[in-house]
C-alpha cells in the first residue's frame, strides 16, 4: 500500500505561525508557540528547536502552555503542519536572539572581525573555545540592556492555489511511503488478526526518531481500525446506535498488528519541513487502507467466488458472509 500526502493547510493563509521566546537573565529559556500538545510530541520538538539553535542543554528550555494572550491569531494544530509552522517560527525567534548575543560576545571578548559561534553552551571565536559561557553571555546581554526576548513569525513560502482554475502549488512538500500488510482470517468465524505491518516511510531527516516512530505506529493502528472494526451506525432516524464503547469497537492491544516495523527512508532533498524533518501526524494513518485489501485478498484466497461490495469497514461479520458467499 503506497501513500502520498501533501503537507500544508490547503487554505494558504492558514500557513502561518508565531513563537514567543524569552531568555531569562539566569540563562533559562521559555518558549510559547501556537502549537497545541495533544500527545503527538510537538512540544518536545519545539524544545529541541530552541536547544539546537542556541546549542544549549535541553534542560534549560521550558515549553509554556498555548495561550491566546501570548500567541495571537493561531492556526489550529492540524494538517500535520504544526511542528513545521511553529518550529520555523521558534527557529526564527531564537536565531534573532542568537544574533544579538553574538554581537554582545564580540564586545565582551574585545574582538572584531571574527566569527562567533555558540557550541555546547560555550562561545567559540573563529572555531576556538573562549572563556565565555552561555550563562555569562546572557547576563552580559541583560546588563548591556539588549533584548533577550523575540516574537518570531513564519509564513510558508512558495505555496499558492487558484480556486478558479483549481490549480496551483498548495503543498510545501509531500510525504511518501509504502506498507506491506499481512493478515490471517479465521475461516470458521470471520475474525482476523493483523500479522504484520512493514513500512518504509519517508521521514526526510527525522529530528526525533522515537516520537516519529510513535506517530507512525499510532496512525497505522488508527487507520486499520477505521478500515476494519470501527463501525459507526446511525439508524434511519439519524440516531447514533454505536454510541458507547460497548457498541463501537476500536483496536485494543489485542487487535493491534502483532508486529509493526518501520524503516526510515532518510532523504536529504531540501524541503520546507523544520530541520528537513518531514511532517508525520497524518500520513501513516493511510497505511491502514492496506489492511482492507489484505483482508479482501485473504477472503478471495479462501473463496474465489467471493466478491464483497467495496465498502469499509471490513468487519468480521462482513468477512464471514464473504467467506461463504456463492456466486
Amino acid at each position, binding site marked *: 500500500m503506497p501513500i502520498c500526502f501533501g503537507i500544508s493547510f490547503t487554505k494558504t493563509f492558514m500557513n502561518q505561525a508565531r513563537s514567543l521566546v524569552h531568555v531569562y537573565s539566569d540563562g533559562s529559556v521559555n518558549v510559547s508557540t501556537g502549537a*497545541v500538545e495533544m500527545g503527538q510530541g510537538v512540544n518536545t520538538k519545539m524544545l529541541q528547536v530552541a536547544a539546537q539553535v542556541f546549542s544549549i542543554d535541553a534542560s534549560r528550555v521550558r515549553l509554556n502552555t498555548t495561550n491566546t494572550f501570548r500567541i495571537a491569531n*493561531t492556526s489550529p494544530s492540524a494538517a500535520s503542519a504544526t511542528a513545521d509552522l511553529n518550529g520555523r517560527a521558534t527557529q526564527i525567534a531564537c536565531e534573532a536572539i542568537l544574533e544579538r548575543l553574538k554581537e554582545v560576545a564580540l564586545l565582551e571578548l574585545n574582538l572584531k572581525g571574527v566569527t562567533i559561534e555558540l557550541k555546547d553552551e560555550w562561545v567559540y571565536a573563529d572555531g576556538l573555545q573562549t572563556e565565555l559561557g552561555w550563562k555569562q553571555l546572557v547576563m552580559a546581554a541583560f546588563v548591556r540592556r539588549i533584548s533577550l526576548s523575540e516574537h518570531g513569525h513564519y509564513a510558508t513560502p512558495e505555496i499558492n492555489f487558484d480556486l478558479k482554475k483549481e490549480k496551483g502549488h498548495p503543498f510545501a512538500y509531500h510525504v511518501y511511503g509504502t506498507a506491506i500488510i499481512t493478515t490471517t482470517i479465521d475461516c470458521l468465524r470471520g475474525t482476523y488478526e493483523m500479522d504484520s505491518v512493514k513500512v*518504509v516511510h519517508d521521514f526526510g531527516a527525522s529530528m526525533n526518531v522515537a516520537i516519529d516512530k510513535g506517530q507512525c505506529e499510532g496512525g497505522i493502528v488508527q487507520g486499520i481500525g*477505521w478500515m476494519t472494526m470501527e463501525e*459507526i451506525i446511525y439508524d434511519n432516524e439519524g440516531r447514533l446506535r454505536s454510541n458507547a464503547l460497548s457498541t463501537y469497537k476500536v483496536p485494543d492491544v489485542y487487535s493491534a498488528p502483532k508486529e509493526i516495523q518501520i524503516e526510515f527512508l532518510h532523504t536529504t532533498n531540501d524541503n520546507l519541513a523544520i530541520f528537513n524533518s518531514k511532517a508525520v501526524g497524518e500520513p501513516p494513518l493511510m497505511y491502514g487502507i492496506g489492511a482492507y485489501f489484505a483482508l479482501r485478498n485473504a477472503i478471495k484466497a479462501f473463496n474465489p467466488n467471493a466478491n464483497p461490495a467495496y465498502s469499509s469497514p471490513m468487519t468480521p461479520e462482513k468477512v464471514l458472509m464473504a467467506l461463504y458467499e456463492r456466486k
Partner: protein
Amino acid sequence: MKNIDSFTHLRGESVYLDDIPVLRGTLYGVAFDSPIAHGEITKLDVSEAESFPGVIRVFTAKDVPGENQIGGIVPDEPLFADHHVHFCGMPIAFVVAETEEAARMAIKKIKLEIKGLPVITDPREAQAKGELIVPPRKFVIGNSDEAFSKCTYVFEGKADSNGQEHLYIETQGAYTYPMENGGIRIHSSTQGPTAVQRACAKVLGVPMHQLEVDVTRLGGGFGGKEDQANTWAALCAMASHLLTRPVKYSLHRMEDMRMTGKRHPYSSDYKIGLSRDLKILAYEATFYQNAGAAADLSPAVLERTLFHCTNSYFIPNVTATAYSCRTHLPPNTAFRGFGGPQGMFVIECAIARAAEELGVPAIEIQKKNLIQSGNEFPYGQIAVSEASECWNRAEEVYSLKEIIAQIDLFNSKE
C-alpha cells in the same frame, strides 16, 4: 530525545482539563440536546428544570448576548437550536447548577415538543435533493473522456467508506472563569485556541482581547477538537459571562459520542482505464461526502479528498468531482487525514477491482503507476517524489517475494 511529557504521563501527573483545581463557587453545566434529528420545536419549557434544587439557570437560544452562531467556514451552525433542530445531539439548552449531579437531574425536567420533519442520512439522497453545503468542486487534468476511448481496459464501480469516532481519551470540555473588567479565562480542550476565542467572542458579543484561552495539553484530538471544541467553550463562557461565576463542563463519553461529529462517511463512484501494459491512463471519480447538518470543516475536507484522489500515482487524465452533502447527522469534522484517506480508498478500490478482473496482483498495477519526480498532480503541483524509493526499499528490506511465497504456501494448505 525522550518526549518531555513522558515522566509526568507515567506518574499520572500530567495536567488535563479535568485536573485543573476548581475555584470556590464553580458551577457545573450540562447540555440538553435534541433527541430528534430533524424537526421544528413547538414547545420548550425549562421552568421546572430551573426551579430544581441546586440549579442556577437554564440557558437557551434567547439568552445569547451576542450571535447564536459558531460556524467557522460557513455561518450555518447555531450554538443553541432555535425553532429548528437539524441533528440528534444538537444543543437546545444549557443547565447550570451548583453540582454536576443537580444539572444532570434537572435536564430530565425540561419539557420539549418537536414536530418531526423528514430525515436524510444518505449523502446521495441529499445530493439528489440539492442539499449541498457548498457548490461542487472539480479537479481536471488532461481529458479523461478522450483517454477512456484509448484504454484497453475500463472498469467502473462504487466504493463506500464509513465514518470514524475520534475517541480521544480525554472527552471534550471547558472550564471558564470571569476575570476583572469583563474578561474571561477559558481553559479548553481544543486544537484551535484562536478558534475558541473567536467563537466565544461572537457568542458573547465581546472583542477577542477580552478572552484568554489557555491550553496545557489534550488527551488526544485527532481533528475532533479542531472546530468542535468551540461549542462547549462557548456554553461555559456564556454562562460565566452572564452569571460572573466559574463554569465547568466536561462531557461524559456517551454525550461526546452522541453530540460531536466524526470522520466523514463517503459514497463514491469510480471509473478507471488502463492500457494493455497496465498503465493507468484515465480516472474519473465522483465523491458524495456526508457532511452532516452544518458545514463545520466539510468544505476543506472535501478539497483534500480531491487533492489526494490519485494517491501516490501519476495519472495523466483525471476528472474528479466532489459534493459536500447536507444530511441530518451531527456535523462531521476533521479527522487525521482530513478527507485524504477517503479519496485514496476509492482509487485503491478501483485498482483492486481492475487487478481482480484482469487476474493480476494489484501490486503490479500499483508499482507501475507510482508518481515520479517531475510528474504533475491533478492540481498542477509538480511532484518531488520518493514513491518508488519507498516501494523498492520495502520490496528489498522486507523480502516481499518471500512474504508472498509464504502466503501462497499457507493458502494452498487444506
